[in-house]
């Protein structure tokens, strides 16, 4: 019977989860920072905010 080496399996999957979640969080944080900066620049320059689609009542 072969040894199962579950610790190696969990190490591989655990590492993948940490790396992928860290990258996802980096993308979300960076996008939020840039979007907020964009909104502030628009306010500062007097440019109109991008309008979302208006729905009729």
């Amino acid at each position, binding site marked *: *019977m*072969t*040894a*199962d*080496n*579950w610790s*190696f*399996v969990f*190490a*591989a*999957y655990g*590492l*993948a989860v940490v*790396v*992928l979640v860290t*990258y*996802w969080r980096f*993308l*979300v944080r*960076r*996008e939020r920072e*840039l*979007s907020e*900066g*964009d909104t502030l*620049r628009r306010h500062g320059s007097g440019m109109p905010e991008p309008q979302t689609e208006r729905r009729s009542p």
Partner: protein
Amino acid sequence: MKRLLGAVTVVGLVAGLVMAFGIAPREATQGNVQRIMYLHVPSVWVAYLAFAVVLVASVAYLARRSEPADRLAHASAEVGVLFTGLTIATGSIWGKPTWGTWWTWDARLTTVSILFVMYLGYLLLRGMIDDRERGARFAAVLGIVAAFNIPLVHFSVYWWRTLHQPPSLMKPGPSTMPGVIVAALLVNFAAFTLLYVYFVTRRARVLRLEAEAEA
């Protein structure tokens, strides 16, 4: 759209985990450590896909000087480097209990390391050149040249005597693996492809916002 893609990706990844740990059987020779394959092989698939996209987007950029193509190449290279790193790390973790070593200068491991370093260089090159247009042009050339390493990585197991096993799925002819293992791999391929699309879409958007902030 972004949220929908994210939700579908999460569902795909959960399905992939269920297939890898719940449906796929314990492999007779290696035992449960073989379940690392459902992470390792889709990771290298995403790396191949990402660098192929870099190649196409780089050609498009040089032909048309299209900024979206440049952003796509940049985003895809970054995600490709991430998944190549993951491939190397998970392969090393899998190698220890099966080969008895974390690392060996085997043809497949060496060529994939060269691939990793080349695209890491691609990202560093982009960061080093201040002139955006010049940086994009140089990176596009490197993105085309580096892509020639992909077939070298893939066929290294046929061209040289290696410790690494030949491709499990990405080869001509029918698979010799049991259907349930192939199905588990295919679900993970689909889930990782969705994850690639999700990451590249978000990264390309961040790059666009960065360019707008600098302008």
